[in-house]
């Protein structure tokens, strides 16, 4: 059961989940800012919740895969990507704050 690896199928599926969760989070953030600009706070709240849910799915899938493999989910690559992502989000928020 552990070593069935024909063509990296589980990895490809996990990556597919990551792509989907990431794009969901991005679209939800876009929608949240659009609602913020259109003075529609309920929409902003719902979209922000969706974004948080997508990120939770992303890290939940990572954690499950890491537990299955018996390694830490916090590889150096993950930490660097998280730092870059956090910086990008901060920059985006700052730009939007200045813009509006």
């Amino acid at each position, binding site marked *: 059961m552990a070593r*069935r690896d*024909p*063509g990296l*199928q*589980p990895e*490809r*599926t996990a990556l*597919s*989940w990551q*792509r*989907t969760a990431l*794009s*969901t989070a*991005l*679209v939800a953030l*876009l*929608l949240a800012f*659009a609602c913020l*600009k*259109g003075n529609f706070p309920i929409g902003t709240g719902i979209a922000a919740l969706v974004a948080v849910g997508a990120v939770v799915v992303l890290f939940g899938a990572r954690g499950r895969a890491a537990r299955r493999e018996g390694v830490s989910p916090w590889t150096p690559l993950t930490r660097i990507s998280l730092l870059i992502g956090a910086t990008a989000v901060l920059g985006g928020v700052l730009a939007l704050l200045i813009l509006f």
Partner: protein
Amino acid sequence: MSESSAGPGSSGEPGDDERRPRAVYGVGSDPDVRFSLANERTALAWVRTGLSLVAGGVALTTLASFADLPWVIDVIALVACLAGGALALSALFSWRRAERALRLDLPLPAPVALPWLVIGVVVLALVLAGYAVFELAGDL
């Protein structure tokens, strides 16, 4: 009908199979794991297609709120958002149908959403092209 779920092909212990939905996992026997994973990836790709439609719709509304664009743009944005949501739902249902077909060793169902998506994209492109021509003719 439910007797067929305990057919000769059932693998493992039927008692501790807790996977949901039962409409999918209650029938047939587990297929090759690669087929299930590929089915899951296909559904996720459909979800991403729907998401990009929603993203396009949101981008169009944002654009329309910046510049004073005509109502055609708003209608197109609305249609794109709704079509994206419908596509995500259809991804779920086609995943279920394909997984059932895999488990029962039946031929795979045809991709129902594909012709609708193609028709929608073509109509959208034609409407936008017609709008662009209309604008051009107005300018000349």
